[in-house]
């Protein structure tokens, strides 16, 4: 998404006394998907008459301040009129406090708006967020705009600001927004979640169910097959001289093919047999344990049908001894199995 390239120029600062101005050193913004999702969700929940909504961004800053990771976001109510803007600062403070309680490691990093437009109000709010005291000072505040106009692409941009203006009064409600590069990054853990979410992207009702292991395996295999198909189609068309050949592509494919392991058939056979045995044995044992446990609980609680009229104590002793034996058996077998596994 970040196709823009950036050139950062140092520029003279505005009429703010040195030392109070936030640094305008270039920085990298990393956005995690849940932050974007929060912004989009907030955009959907805006009041009918609102053009855009704003909120606070939270995240972490790298030690030298050159990278900001936006981890989460929360909405802040605000209203814009012709000539004035009102942001619910009290709300922002309370929510921030609540949020920090649960995520002590995250700090305030900036704010977002759901329109690409930058105007005077943006500058005002930006100055609040980057100010001293409650703001991000001495670090620059990140301003993220996510355009959510219907019928157009979502456009995300990140900015930091520099003070601008001739006098101190003018500087309070103006700011020079400097675009900064950003990237969307997600961890290993998010991958499976995003994949499941992406499954719903083509569905009419925009929903998908959580898939089981085997289903997702099936999908992954289908995906690989279609990729192999695509590549072989390309290779065929190159051989038929329909598509221009590319050395780079050929090299790349060769490299990929070279990744196929060269192993002795006997080794494979051995490894395969070892592992398949492990897998099946564990599965078998797990199910045995399950059955035994179920049996044991059933016997312990369902003895009334055995001895009619006999007190509950009588037969249960016998049953429990049997349970006990069952339990010991189970205890022994998986242990053996584990040693087997360690060997393999």
């Amino acid at each position, binding site marked *: 998404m970040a196709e823009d390239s950036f050139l950062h120029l140092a520029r003279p600062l505005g009429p703010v006394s040195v030392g109070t101005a936030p640094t305008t050193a270039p920085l990298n913004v990393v956005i995690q998907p849940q932050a974007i999702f929060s912004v989009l969700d907030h955009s959907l929940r805006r009041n009918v008459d609102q053009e855009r909504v704003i909120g606070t961004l939270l995240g972490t800053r790298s030690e030298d301040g050159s990278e900001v990771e936006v981890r989460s976001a929360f909405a802040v109510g605000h209203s814009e009129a012709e000539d004035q803007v009102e942001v619910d600062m009290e709300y922002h403070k309370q929510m921030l406090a609540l949020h920090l309680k649960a995520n002590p490691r995250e700090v305030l990093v900036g704010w977002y708006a759901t329109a690409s437009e930058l105007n005077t109000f943006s500058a005002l709010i930006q100055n609040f967020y980057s100010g001293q005291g409650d703001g991000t000072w001495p670090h620059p505040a990140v301003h993220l705009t996510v355009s959510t106009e219907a019928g157009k692409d979502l456009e995300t941009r990140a900015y930091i600001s520099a003070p601008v203006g001739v006098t101190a009064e003018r500087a309070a409600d103006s700011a020079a927004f400097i675009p900064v590069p950003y990237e969307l990054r997600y961890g290993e*853990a998010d991958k499976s979640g995003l994949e499941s979410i992406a499954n719903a*992207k083509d569905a009419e009702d925009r929903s998908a169910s959580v898939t089981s292991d*085997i289903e997702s395996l099936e999908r992954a295999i289908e*995906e690989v097959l279609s990729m192999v198909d695509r590549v072989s189609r390309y290779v065929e068309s190159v051989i038929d001289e329909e598509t221009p050949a590319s050395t780079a592509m050929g090299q790349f494919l060769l490299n990929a093919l070279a990744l196929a392991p060269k192993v002795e058939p006997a080794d494979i056979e051995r490894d395969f047999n070892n592992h398949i045995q492990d897998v099946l044995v*564990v599965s078998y044992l*797990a199910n045995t344990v*399950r059955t035994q446990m179920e049996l*044991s609980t059933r016997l312990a609680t369902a003895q009334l049908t055995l001895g009619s009229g006999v007190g509950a104590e009588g037969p249960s002793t016998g049953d429990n001894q049997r349970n006990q034996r069952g*339990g010991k058996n189970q205890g022994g077998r998986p242990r053996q199995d584990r040693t087997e596994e360690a060997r393999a």
Partner: protein
Amino acid sequence: MAEIPAPLAAVQVEALVVMKIIKHCSQTFPSTATGGIVGMDVDGTLEITNTFPFPVVEVPAESHFDNAAPNPAAAAPRAKANAAYSAEMIRMLREVNTDANSVGWYTSANMGNFVNMNVIENQFYYQSQLNERTVALVHDVSRSSQGSLSLRAFRLSSKFMAAFKENKFTSEDLQKSNLRHPDIFEELPVKLHNSHLITSFIHQLQCPTSTASTELPPSLAALESSPFAKTSTLTPNFDNLSLSIDPFLEKNCDLLLDSIETHNTEVNNYQYYQRVLGREQQKINAWKQKRAQENASRATLNQPLLPEDEWQRLFKLPAEPSRLESMLNTRQVDQYARQVDSFVSSSTGKMFAIKGNLLPNETSN
């Protein structure tokens, strides 16, 4: 409530909630993470639209040896401080038009080990104190890292609720109520749901540059540095093609062994109880016989009879240990076994596929 609403049949989770839960759970992994969920109940489908994590109260260093609360996060949902926290949070969320209706809580799990007293007590608290129509979402971090997202929704069955309320878990009660381990939880199907904006966002993510693809790269280096070589887009997650079997099986065996040990302890407890009970019963019988003899001799001597039911005061029968723990344990083992089954079904497939590929001669004849 005037009319009886339809029972909850399904849970629909917004993409935002999924991502937030994943983030919170994986951040705190391997310790447990919990949080609250808010949403709406529409015709038997519980729509979960937002979530917030519960703060973990940091245990001060000096109380390190205090074993009273080994895992504060696991108990967080029913802690008093958090009730205030979540009430406050929900009030704040209402101001920005979020659904301000607590519909349950979520917890993280590791390899499906979520069937324990903490979860039961939390969910019991939610279903009995706050709102009957609440669910517990369980996100299994380790299973999700293997490829497919594992997010499940559970409720306590009404039968179990009734039994838990009165703590009726002696074997006699269980015989009467016919409560079994599959009856503890009701699992609700989970559906993921995206808003329009998120749908369009994901579409945009997946095709970053559709026009530039026609050009062939001039060199290998260019190809490798091109946006296509970077796997930054959402597209497929091939983690579930990987063949690491042993760690998963090992972990599962460990967990199973733990369960078996719990089972043994429970059985031993019960046996102990029975031995003590038997001994007491014997004593009582001996006492009764003695009293009967005494009374018989007194009757012949025309003396007033001694009361025969005094043994109830003299002897105390031990209380029967609760069967709840072993029931939960059985449910847990059940969970593990199913998990292993599902893993085995996919991994055997993969293994045969690899064998078939690496030994092509084998498959042809």
